[in-house]
């Protein structure tokens, strides 16, 4: 090994140590939701003893003890900080995490495999907050999430629009001229089709954009790159070869911030879901209430009711808080006109959108 290589390898190991520590801290914060008492001396001693029994000739047991004690102390300090646990779907670096970082600036961001894990986790109190996408400017509604909004009992307390800007990422060692295959979520690959064709790159579908970036960093396959967010470049130590490689005009995804309790203050935007009976003019009657009260609607979407095929639920976002008299009056009147109605929450609108 040349000195240069040794230095590079050492840097990589340092990085991996820190990433693992970060993962450990995340787990400690999650465990806080279960534990009755924060410190468990017996468990701590067991852990230290186990670690000392490892026969590592270069690492003295006194050093092991010192190191782990330091880590435990830092973990306790972090647990005392009382950070909000914000769950999102996808691997670290997913666009959901980009949204979560904007909505919850000092949070701890917890990746979940499925949307339902985010909803259930918040409902059951394992997470404080959830961040989920509701619609994309190119692809439309995220039906799974809209369905979960209908069936679970969480409140919307915030929103953010995240501009989806795809980056071509590769490991530092990869020469861009040798890249042949590009891994990413099929939707991201489709949004960058012209870019891939111009540069004669082969698409390789992967389950997740951030997952592709993570795989690249861990396995470093030959002649490969990934399409993912610029956050992934930071998290997985990848080089950004080109930013903004999507073909079309920039697209964006709107994310909602979910919690068990509604927003404590007056929001300036409200979301509801409702269903009306199958009679002429029912939907019109509801919308007329908003028109007459001069309330501006910002989104109307319909989705088949899973519990009642042939009927639809309507998603309505409008300007104003439910604490506003005009809005409250409309909502009250609506109850008589709808078969079913659910108030999702009033929250501060994303000013940039």
């Amino acid at each position, binding site marked *: 090994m040349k000195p240069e290589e040794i230095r590079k390898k050492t840097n990589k190991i340092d990085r991996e140590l820190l990433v693992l520590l970060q993962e450990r801290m995340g787990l400690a914060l999650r465990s806080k939701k279960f534990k009755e008492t924060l410190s468990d001396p017996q468990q701590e001693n067991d852990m230290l003893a186990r670690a000392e029994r490892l026969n590592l000739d270069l690492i003295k047991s006194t050093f092991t003890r010192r190191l782990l004690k330091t880590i435990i102390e830092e973990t306790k300090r972090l647990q005392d900080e009382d950070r909000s646990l914000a769950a999102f779907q996808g691997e670290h670096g997913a666009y959901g995490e980009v949204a979560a970082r904007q909505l919850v600036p000092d949070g701890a961001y917890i990746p979940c495999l499925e949307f339902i894990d985010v909803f259930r986790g918040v409902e059951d109190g394992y997470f404080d907050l959830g961040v989920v996408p509701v619609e994309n400017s190119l692809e439309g509604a995220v039906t799974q999430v809209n369905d979960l909004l209908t069936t679970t009992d969480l409140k919307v307390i915030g929103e953010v629009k995240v501009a989806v800007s795809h980056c071509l990422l590769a490991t530092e060692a990869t020469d861009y001229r040798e890249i042949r295959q590009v891994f990413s979520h099929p939707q991201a690959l489709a949004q960058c089709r012209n870019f891939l064709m111009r540069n*004669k790159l082969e698409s390789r579908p992967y389950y997740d954009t951030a997952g592709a970036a993570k795989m690249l960093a861990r396995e470093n396959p030959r002649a490969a790159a990934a399409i993912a967010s610029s956050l992934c470049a930071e998290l997985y130590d990848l080089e950004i070869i080109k930013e903004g490689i999507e073909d079309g005009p920039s697209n964006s995804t709107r994310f909602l911030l979910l919690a068990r309790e509604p927003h404590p203050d007056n929001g300036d935007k409200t979301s509801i879901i409702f269903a009306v009976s199958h009679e002429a003019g029912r939907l019109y009657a509801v919308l007329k209430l908003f028109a007459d009260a001069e309330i501006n609607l910002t989104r109307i979407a319909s989705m088949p009711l899973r519990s009642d095929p042939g009927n639809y639920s309507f998603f309505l976002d409008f300007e104003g808080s439910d604490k506003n008299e005009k809005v409250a009056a409309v909502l009250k009147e609506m109850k008589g006109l709808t078969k079913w109605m659910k108030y999702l929450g009033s929250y501060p609108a994303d000013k940039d959108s």
Partner: protein
Amino acid sequence: MKNLKLVARETKKGTVVKVADVEIGRDFVVIAGPCSVESEKQILDTARAVKAAGADMLRGGAFKPRTSPYSFQGLGIQGLKILEKAKQETGLPIVTEVVDPRDVSWVAEFADILQIGTRNMQNFSLLKEVGHSGRPVLLKRGMHSTLEEWLNCAEYILSEGNPDVILCERGIRTFETYTRNTLDLSAVPAIKELSHLPIIIDPTHSTGRISLIASMSMAAVAAGADGMIVEVHHKPQEALCDADQALTPDMFANMMTRLRALKSFLNNQPLESNGKMN
């Protein structure tokens, strides 16, 4: 010049290459910037300065064909990213050189115009590659090349389906040693007779002397050139290459004022004008 099927004068009226709002072949277009991209600050400072002085596009090399293998070879893709940033800030389109056929599609992702340098004029595999890059090409004249050889190289690019070629006279080798090369200004009207392609001049590499740049630029305007490409560095004494031939932003601004005065003088002449200047 029998073999010129696509670039010959009689085949087409004057070609106008459009890049954003800039029309090469209609206006006198000024492309300015440093020899090579050295740092973000250097490019941004220079880009702001040349924009303020009235430049239409920004030049800067990320891949450098250098005479010596030990000279600074350029920042590569890192340099392209810096140029992209300067474009986002100033709105100036980017002209940058490509030296390797394998780099063409990548450079085309960042640059608005691909430059083929004098040493690569007859690099036919590179010419074919830029011929289907989808970007306009600035083709510099080989320092030992005749007009016919040069036009044949342009023919290569057009025959690959890319009509947007801009020719650039950058000086030819003669026995004169006071100047770095000899600016063949007669190439400007000669190309106008032979071809419909726009032609600009490079007063920097042709003279290699700061003191001669402004005069040669004035001469190019008078000769009917479609523009010029000139080296400007925010701190020439610190430049990593061609330090002794780059203009300072002040010198550049001063030259631009004189060029504007000359253009307006020529435009206001009651006599027949060639319609190329505004």
